[in-house]
């Protein structure tokens, strides 16, 4: 599902996908990653994280790799990587448009 059908990713969604780039993680590690990466600007409530992880699995952006009691580990799929790149490109376009307006 492309960005036009799905709509743009929200900030929490973007950072969650970012957290999985290049490595597998479990849910609890994501909260720390996002808080550290954004300097506390973006906070993930447990409900937000749980809902978005379920949503990404449903959309096949993430796949489960391991279950260890209460800890589940996920990794990004190709579809998830494509969605992240697409969103990144969209944000770059937004930034470029904004800078162009400011500089002119």
């Amino acid at each position, binding site marked *: 599902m492309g960005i036009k059908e799905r709509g743009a990713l929200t900030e929490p969604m973007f950072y969650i996908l970012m957290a999985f780039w290049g490595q597998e993680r479990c849910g609890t590690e994501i909260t720390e990653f996002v808080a550290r990466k954004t300097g506390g600007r973006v*906070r993930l*409530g447990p409900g937000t994280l749980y809902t978005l992880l379920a949503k990404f699995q449903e959309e096949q952006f993430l796949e489960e790799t391991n279950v260890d*009691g209460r800890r589940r580990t996920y990794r990004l799929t190709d579809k998830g990587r494509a969605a992240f790149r697409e969103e990144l490109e969209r944000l770059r376009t937004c930034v470029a448009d904004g800078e162009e307006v400011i500089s002119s």
Partner: protein
Amino acid sequence: MKEERSLSLEAEKDWEEYKFTPISPYDIPGLEHWLEELANQGLFPVHLGMIHCRFNHTGVPGTRFRLEPIDQAAKPTPEQLEMYAQAGWTYVMPVVRQSYFLFYTTDPEAPELYSDWASRGMSLDRLTRQVRRLHIFWLCYPLILFVLNFLMPLVPHSSRPGSWLASLPTQMPMLLLHMFMPIKFLLLLTTLYVVLRTWYNHRVLVKIHRNLKNGLPPPPTRGYNRWVWLDNASTIPLLIFTCLLGIWTFKIKVGRELKEFTQPYVPLAQIEQTQAYSGGWFFREFSLLAPVWYQVEESVYASAHEAVPGEAGYPIARMNMTRLRLLIPPLARGVAEAEMARLRVDELSYDYEELEVPGLDFALLARDETGASQLATLGRDGWVAVFRYSGGEELSGHLELLASMVC
């Protein structure tokens, strides 16, 4: 003394309070706020249903409650419990007919479960779809109910395929009487009310869901709703009333032997002018539009043995009579023709004759093409009598006797 006080406090904590749910089950912020208000009064939910709730006295002021829509599993996954517990939220139980998981926290520093409205909206996707399906079902249900409860009873006893459809316009007045039978009328009113209530609940949830999905906070809700409280509080009395009404309806509708009957009817012996043995049944109906409504089936036999109900015997003559008193007299002619259409044998054609009888609003006679059965209907001031006769006599020769049923 100290031990007594401790035991007393423990007993008080165990003692439960019952309350009727005063808020729509899909007004999530309203429900959460109501639980928090009750927690401030020292109450903690033990059971939270669509109609009633139970609380014990272990509530802690300042407790926050959150309702998490149930996804698919009957209880939260270990992963969800772990994530929520790490944030300071404790799971209580599934609530509102397995629609939500209830979580609570007494820690004022615990972060909210959702850090943005959009993800909160996503969590309601499945519930919104379920409620929409329920809403569509309840919109269709009155139609199904209408067909099963009102149209099916009007199917003639002997009908060619599709012929009852053709006779439906004639049966409309009788349909009206059926709709106003107390139990059916109550069922109809209840169904319409449930349709309205489902529509209201659906609307509440859809508004909340739409706002959240657009990244906006949920719209302000009514919270405590007196009508929701009344609706829930009246459920049990209404159920009891419906059961009693159903029992009463069943009792009056059950056929009984004619010898127990005390209401006026035309005994077949007076038409046949014979001392032959007779037996039969009577059946009562009741409609708010027809407070007097009964049917009598009587047969005359050659021997006493054959006249015993249940015994196999071939009758010399047979009479079916339906007598009604209508509270809306203009309906009389239509009801009479509908009942006449119901009693006729579909495979036969009938010759009809309308008579001018002084003192009567209408008088119709009919005879089937074989001459085996005759139909008659008379009406006056809202009274209607319909007869189907099989025998050797002519009904036209006994009009005065038949007219006594409508005078």
